[in-house]
């Protein structure tokens, strides 16, 4: 193995030196018992030959007896030291440019190297056993993370998600899940010990009648996965008990089991969202069905094809589940 390495080392020497002394150096290597010191000598020789020894090609045309200029072709030689120096300067400049671009990437996530999900959550510890020290007269200042993705529109809309995502990186980390009860308490503006749909992010029309408002609250709490997970008894509110158990409830949404929640895991299904909106608009009496009478409204006419497709069994009414299935079917057809 060492002989093979020494041969490679000799092979890396300049050609003229290698051809002239390579065999002899290998012969000495074979005879000598101190292989390690010869390996070191080989490395030093390699550096010396390439860096210190000048290999300027002497080339000058000469004139033959008949007066015609004679030219000689030379063996390929290594670059001159000055050329190597120029190469080193160019390399240094390019390296500096890359470092500059990496540190000033102008919010271009495509230029980030080293993290698929750039997030402060990757830096924050999830758990600590250390006791908090209240009287420590120290101030910790953190430099801002060089790249901060814009807060997702969905996280802005859903006040619960905005409160849970304390570092606003669009990821609810393990630490943030553990801290969920404390984060949710901050949303309890009226201090009644529970979170209503409005406190979770619903912004209803103030002129709605109480019945419609109630249906809207229930639909809002049911459609959004994070609210549905937190509102375990599905009464349209997140109670004190449900807030205390928020961490465990949120972990049920962690589909890939990586300990954190990303937007894909908390976004509502498009078909479910659309079906819920249609049901809310057409199911006037709130019985969970769109009856033939309710299908006569102007709005229902716009969804006639969809409603006809949803009532494949000819039951005479359409449920939200029928709508979800029909919407998914039409989405798949559109993709094909």
């Amino acid at each position, binding site marked *: 193995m060492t002989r093979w390495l020494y041969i490679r080392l000799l092979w890396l020497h300049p050609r003229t030196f290698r051809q002239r002394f390579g065999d002899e150096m290998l012969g000495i290597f074979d005879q000598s018992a101190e292989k390690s010191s010869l390996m070191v*000598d080989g490395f*030093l020789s390699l550096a010396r030959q390439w860096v210190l020894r000048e290999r300027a090609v002497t080339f000058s045309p000469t004139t033959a007896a008949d007066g015609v200029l004679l030219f000689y072709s030379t063996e390929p030689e290594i670059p001159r030291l000055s050329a190597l120096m120029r190469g080193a300067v160019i390399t240094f400049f390019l390296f500096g440019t890359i470092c500059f671009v990496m540190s000033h990437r102008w919010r271009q996530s495509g230029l980030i190297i080293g993290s698929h999900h750039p997030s402060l959550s990757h830096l924050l510890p999830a758990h600590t056993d250390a006791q908090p020290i209240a009287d420590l007269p120290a101030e910790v200042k953190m430099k801002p993370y060089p790249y901060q993705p814009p807060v997702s529109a969905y996280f802005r809309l859903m006040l619960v998600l905005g409160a849970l995502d304390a570092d606003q990186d669009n990821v609810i980390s393990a630490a943030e899940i553990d801290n969920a009860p404390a984060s949710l308490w901050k949303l309890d503006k009226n201090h009644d010990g529970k979170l209503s749909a409005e406190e979770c992010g619903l912004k209803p029309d103030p002129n709605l009648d109480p019945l419609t408002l109630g249906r809207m609250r229930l639909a809002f709490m049911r459609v959004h996965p994070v609210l549905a997970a937190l509102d375990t008894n599905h009464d349209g509110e997140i109670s004190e008990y449900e807030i205390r158990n928020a961490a465990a409830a949120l972990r049920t949404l962690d589909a890939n089991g990586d300990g954190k929640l990303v937007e894909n895991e908390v976004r509502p299904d498009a078909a479910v969202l659309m079906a819920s909106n249609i049901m809310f608009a057409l199911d006037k009496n709130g019985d969970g069905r769109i009856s033939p009478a309710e299908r006569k409204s102007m709005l229902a006419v716009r969804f006639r094809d969809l409603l006809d497709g949803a009532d494949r069994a000819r039951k005479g009414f359409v449920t939200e589940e029928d709508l979800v299935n029909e919407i998914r079917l039409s989405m798949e057809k559109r993709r094909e």
Partner: protein
Amino acid sequence: MKDDLSKFLPLAPAALHILLALAGEDMHGYGIMQEVARQSEGAYKLGPGTLYDNLQRLMDQGMVLEVTSDDPRRRYYRLSSLGRKVLSTEISRLEGVVREARLHLRRSS
């Protein structure tokens, strides 16, 4: 002539030891390494990389010649007349250095 030799002086330790080793007889590379180790009582050991780098330079300067031998795998090297003169001049210079050093040491003691 002395002025012509001055451009080679002082000799680097490796070059001095190689010329000294070749002063007695023609030698191949491994023989030179062993002779250098013997002359310095093991205190100075030449590696093949250092040896052949110096040999190349000494041959380019005309102080060492490559001679043919019966063994095609080994090349033998010989001290040229120029090499011998340079070595003699270097030894004289070193003798002067040693003489001066002894004189100064005697005065200081």
